[in-house]
C-alpha cells in the first residue's frame, strides 16, 4: 500500500527519517511524496528497497547516497541529483541540473530530459542514461560505469577520463583532455541497447551511438611515472 508524505505539513528531516526507517526486513515500503516545492536533500541516504515517488520539482542533492531504493522524481531536479549513489534506481521525468550522478558507485540513474554541466563527474561505477542532452565537462575524471546520452554532449566531454565508457547519439561539442572516440563494436551496441531497455527508453537504435573513452595518455597511465612510489 502506498503511503503519502506531505512536505507542506512535515519537514525534510522528518521525511528522510521516515524513509530511512525502512530496513528491508519487512514488506517493501511505497511512498508518494507531495509538495516538494523545490526543497533540498529529499529522500537521501535510503538503505532499503523502498519505492519513492516525488510529485513535483526538487532542489539540491535529491536521492543522494541512495542504496537499493527506487526513487522517481516527477519533475526537474536541482544540482547534485543522486550524488554518490551506491545502488538502486533514480529516475527524473524532467531535467537535472549540474553534476547529476557525481561520484556515484552503482545503480542506474535515468534522466528523461536534459542533464546540465558535469553530469557523471567522477562517476565510479554508476550507469547513467540521459534521454536528452548533457552539458559541458560531463564525465570529468569518470572512473568506471557507463554514460549513455541520447542527445548532444557539451564541451570537454570525458576530460581526464579513466575507465568509464561514454556513448553519445547526438553531436559532441568537444572532447576533453585524453578523451577519444573509439570504435563501436557489436558488443558496445548491445551494451547501449541493454542500458536503454533498463532505462525504459524505446525507439532508439543502439547503432546510432558513438563510443568515447580514455586514450590513457595522461600521467597516471605512464609506467615511467611508477618510480615516484
Amino acid at each position, binding site marked *: 500500500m502506498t503511503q503519502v508524505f506531505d512536505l507542506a505539513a512535515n519537514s525534510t528531516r522528518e521525511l528522510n527519517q521516515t524513509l530511512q526507517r525502512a530496513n528491508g526486513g519487512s514488506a517493501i515500503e511505497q511512498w508518494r511524496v507531495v509538495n516538494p*516545492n*523545490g*526543497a*533540498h536533500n529529499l529522500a537521501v541516504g535510503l538503505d532499503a528497497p523502498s519505492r519513492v515517488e516525488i510529485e*513535483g*520539482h526538487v*532542489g*539540491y542533492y535529491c536521492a543522494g547516497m541512495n542504496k537499493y531504493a527506487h526513487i522517481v522524481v516527477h519533475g*526537474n531536479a*536541482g*544540482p547534485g541529483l543522486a550524488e554518490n549513489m551506491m545502488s538502486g534506481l533514480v529516475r527524473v521525468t*524532467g*531535467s537535472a*541540473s*549540474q553534476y547529476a550522478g557525481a561520484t556515484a558507485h552503482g545503480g542506474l540513474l535515468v534522466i528523461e530530459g536534459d542533464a*546540465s*554541466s558535469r553530469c557523471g563527474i567522477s562517476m565510479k561505477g554508476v550507469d547513467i542514461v540521459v534521454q536528452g542532452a548533457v*552539458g*559541458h565537462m560531463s564525465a570529468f575524471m569518470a572512473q568506471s560505469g557507463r554514460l549513455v546520452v541520447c542527445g548532444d554532449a557539451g564541451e570537454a566531454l570525458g576530460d581526464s577520463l579513466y575507465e568509464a565508457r561514454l556513448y553519445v547519439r547526438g553531436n559532441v561539442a568537444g572532447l576533453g583532455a585524453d578523451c577519444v572516440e573509439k570504435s563501436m563494436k557489436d558488443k558496445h551496441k548491445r551494451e547501449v541497447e541493454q542500458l536503454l531497455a533498463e532505462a525504459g527508453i524505446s525507439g532508439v537504435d543502439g547503432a546510432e551511438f558513438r563510443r568515447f573513452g580514455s586514450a590513457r595518455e595522461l600521467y597516471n597511465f605512464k609506467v615511467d611515472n611508477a618510480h615516484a612510489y
Partner: protein
Amino acid sequence: MCGIVGLFAKTPGFEAELGQHFAQMLREMTDRGPDSAGFAVYRDAVPFGQIKLTLLAPEGFFWPDFEAALHSAFDGIERLSLHGNHAVVVTSVWLADLAEWLRAGFPQLRVLSSGGAIEIYKEKGLPERVIEHFDVAAMSATHALGHTRMATESAVTTEHSHPFSTGEDLCLVHNGSLSNHNRLRRDLEKRGVRFATDNDSEVAAGYFTWRLREGDTLEQALSRGMRDLDGFYTFAIGTRDGFAVLRDPIACKPAVISECDDWVAMASEYRAIARLPGAAAAKSWEPEPGRIYSWSH
C-alpha cells in the same frame, strides 16, 4: 553564495500583485544570503521630461532639512517620498544639475538609481527585515529584481549591497565573485566611471555602465563582458522594459528560469519560484552557460 530573484509581469493583473510574490521569492533566498538584501522595482513611470531618483542617507540623516534645501534650490520638484533612510525624488530638473548639487551640498547621500521607473532599496540584515521595512508585499510593479547577499569579497554594509545602478533605469545583481576587479576598477576609473565601494560586483556594474554609455546595446555589453570579466557569475540585469540573465561560460553559479502566461521568473534556486501561482505547470529550465536571455514589455 548569494541569491538572486527576478520577477516580470506579463499581464496587468499580475503587475498588481507582483510585490507579494516577489517578497516571497526574496524571503525564500534567505539561506543563500542572510547578510543584506536589496531590490530594484520598476513602477509608477514618470512622464516624459521628468526623472526619478532613489537616494540613500546614512543613519540619523534629517530629511526635512534636505527637503527644504531641495525646494529652495530648484523649481520642478514634483515629489519627494520617504521610505526609512531612502527617499524617492521625482523632478523635471536636469539630472546632471541635481547630481552636482547633491555632491556639493549633501555628499553623504548616495544616488542608488535614476531613471523613469526604477527605484532601488537595500539594507543590511535578513531579507525579511528589508521586505517588511519597505513593505515590498504591497508594491505593484511591472518587474523587480532582488538580491540576498552572503558577503565574500568585501564588507557587509548597505552600500556594498546589491542591486547596483548601471545607468538610467538599469541595474545589476550578481551571484558569484570576480577575480580581476581591482585592475578593471582602475581602468574604468580612468574612463570616468565612479565607484562608491571596493565591491567586485560594483565593478561589473561600472563596466556595463561604461559599455552602455559608449553606445553598446545591452546584448553587446554583456557579450563583451564575458570576455573582460574574469570570475564566476550569474548576472541579472534590470532594464526599463524588462530584464536579462547571463551565466558565465563555466556556469558554477546556479540559475533557474520559469515562464507561464502571467509571468517570467528567474532565481538562484527553483524553491524561490515554486510558490508562484501556476509554477507547477510553468515551463522551467536552467539557462545555458554564456547565453543571454532577455524579456521586455
